[in-house]
């Protein structure tokens, strides 16, 4: 059986890829994808820690991950809708060009 550190390494790798994507990409959709990756890295952590916990027979970790996925789906829907609206308004999806909220 793969040790816990293996899962955590994969998860950390996934998170770093997501963070790098979110930070470097200019397209809003790409940023969103990066965020999703980070979210899934977190989910992977949940599952891994649950599996290696003292009471793996209780389904808590699984439930938590399921909730998290459902929320991520809802968030993606809202995020995409926002991106479409922003695109319609500014005629671009480049997040550097959208700086209306400047103080």
């Amino acid at each position: 059986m793969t040790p816990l550190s293996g899962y955590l390494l994969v998860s950390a790798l996934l998170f770093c890829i997501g963070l790098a994507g979110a930070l470097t990409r200019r397209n809003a959709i790409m940023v969103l994808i990066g965020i999703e990756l980070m979210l899934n890295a977190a989910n992977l952590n949940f599952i891994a820690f649950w599996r290696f916990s003292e009471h793996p027979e209780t389904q808590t970790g699984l439930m938590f991950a399921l909730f998290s996925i459902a929320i991520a789906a809802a968030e993606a829907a809202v995020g995409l809708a926002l991106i479409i609206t922003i695109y319609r308004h500014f005629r671009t999806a480049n997040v550097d060009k959208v700086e209306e909220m400047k103080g």
Partner: protein
Amino acid sequence: MSWILQNLWLIPVLPLLAAGISALLKRPNRSLAAGLAIGSMGASFLLSCMAFAETLGKHGAASRQFHNFDWFALGDTVVRLGWVLDPLTAAMVVMITFVGSLIFIFSVGYMSHDENFTRFFCFLSLFAAAMLGLIIANNLLLLFMCWELVGLASYLLIGFWFHKPSAAAAAKKAFITTRIGDVFFFLGIVWLYSETGTLLFYTEDHTGCLEQAALAKMVAHTTIGGLAASSAIGLLLFCGAIGKSGQLPLHVWLPDAMEGPTPVSALIHAATMVAAGVFLVARVYPLMELQQAGVSEPIPLTAVTWIGALTAIFGALVAVSQTDIKRILAYSTVSQLGYMMMGLGIGGVAVGMFHLLTHAFFKALLFLGSGSIIHGCHEEQDIRRMGGIKKYMPVTFATYAIGMMALSGVPLVFCGFWSKDEILHAAWLYQPSKIPFFLGLGGAFLTAFYMTRQMCFVFAGKYRGHARESMADSHDSHPAVHEAGHGHAHDPHESPAVMTLPLQILAACTVLLTLVSTPLWPWLPEYLVAQAAHFDAAKLFNAGTLTLLVVSGVVVAGGIGLGWWFYGLLPAEKPDETDPLEQQFPEQFAWSRGKFFVDELYAATFVKWNARLGELCHDLDRRVLDLLVSLVGWATTGCAHVAKLFDEFVVNKLFDAGCTEVRRGAEAASELQSGQIHQYLRSIGLALVLFVFILAVGCNK
């Protein structure tokens, strides 16, 4: 409990509603206002008749019924109001609603040219409502409230033509003069409350202030000067009656009140306002007649008797020489009210109230008659410019003559004779002194004399109203005078039926009342004190009564005869002729014409002192208080200047500096908010790395 007792409150409330509604009406709604007033008065009259029927046939204590209710409670003290139905109440409400209705009907004719017709009927209804409330009250406080409302309504009515300065002044005078009496009245009420703890007259458990327990307590309590509390309270309450009923020191407002429209004079002088004082004394009679130890007569009643007797002769003396038709009647009212007070003082409730009731009818008749004459003579009030009106106004003449004979006390068929005779009879039997009797007899003689004088001036001879017109014609350069005199070119005319019908009804009542008021069958006076009347010929034909009847008959005949000899044999030809009486007794006549200079005396003393006091207060106010106020003002302004300097140079500077710093900080902070999502994300990422680093280092330790 009978239906009418439960609903006795409707009697004053109906006119009150009429007053309220007509207060909201617009000026052109004349017939609606008059209809409301007369209708509500008529309905009250019907209710009053039911109340009257309820009291019939009950004698002694059974004749008094009352209904009390809680008004409000303050802690443990419950203020209770209520109404009382006894023969006194019933007789008064019937009289007031009946005479009042007739006066209202008469007013429709008299006020027909007045543009404030609606307002007039509103005030009349308010007046009637207040008066009826006063009559049925079973609580001295409720009575006082209505009493003050009556005062207010009379002020409004006397000053109805307020654009005339004399009317405005008369209204003010009436209000202030009666207020002097009312202050003492109120003191009496407060004292009575502190002595007995209640202001209800009668209660179910016999604790009312006119019932045995309270009275015994009051008479036993001796206060300053050896006066029992009951006597002192009685005197204070009588002070209120003096003001309201125009008794001697405070009579001055009553003749001036003639400035109001004539129906108002009739309402105030006949049925209602002036009767309120007499009624008050009759209502609290159990208190007035309490006899304190060591004094032979009840002190309040002695005061009532003497003030009444003096007022009776005083009013008659002044009335002899007046020339304004309404003023003669006003002084005659003063005199008759004196008789009523005297009757109350020496003969009890029956005697005084009996004269009040009969007087209400014939004095209302006389006032309405004078209104009809004034109306017919084109608003002329001076009897020297009348004369010969008998042939122009036959109905008015006939009814006025009946009223005049009733007032003078012409024997046998007029009720005024019998009620006046009752008073004289009681005065004759008055033990402490015979002077009130002779004052009353003198007053009776003078009454007959001045009424004859007035009749001769107004109705006999030929019409002298044209004199002024011819005078105006000779001064053609004076167009305004000519214009004013133009109205007199017409002869006097009889008034319309709406005015003469009430006169006829009142005249009929004046005669019909005689049937129940002779000593043969003295139903009315006995009813008033809740006793059964018996047909008793012996009462009339005993030596004392018969002698007195003859004496007063002779006195009245003497008065009328002398009046006729002075004024009737040779009627005045011109308005500016000297009065025949003046030729005989110029000095005494001048005193009478000047109303014994009471007004001038008051003007030279009380009014002047009051004005002085006012000026003194004004000076004190301006010189001393104003100075103090100004000093405070200046001090405040000085402090304000110091505060302003401090504000500008310390507080403002500091505050401005603070503001600048805050703004600069805010500008720096706003740099962070770039709107660039990546920048935010970078910050988050950096923070995360730092966080993880700190955690890792912390855990390793």
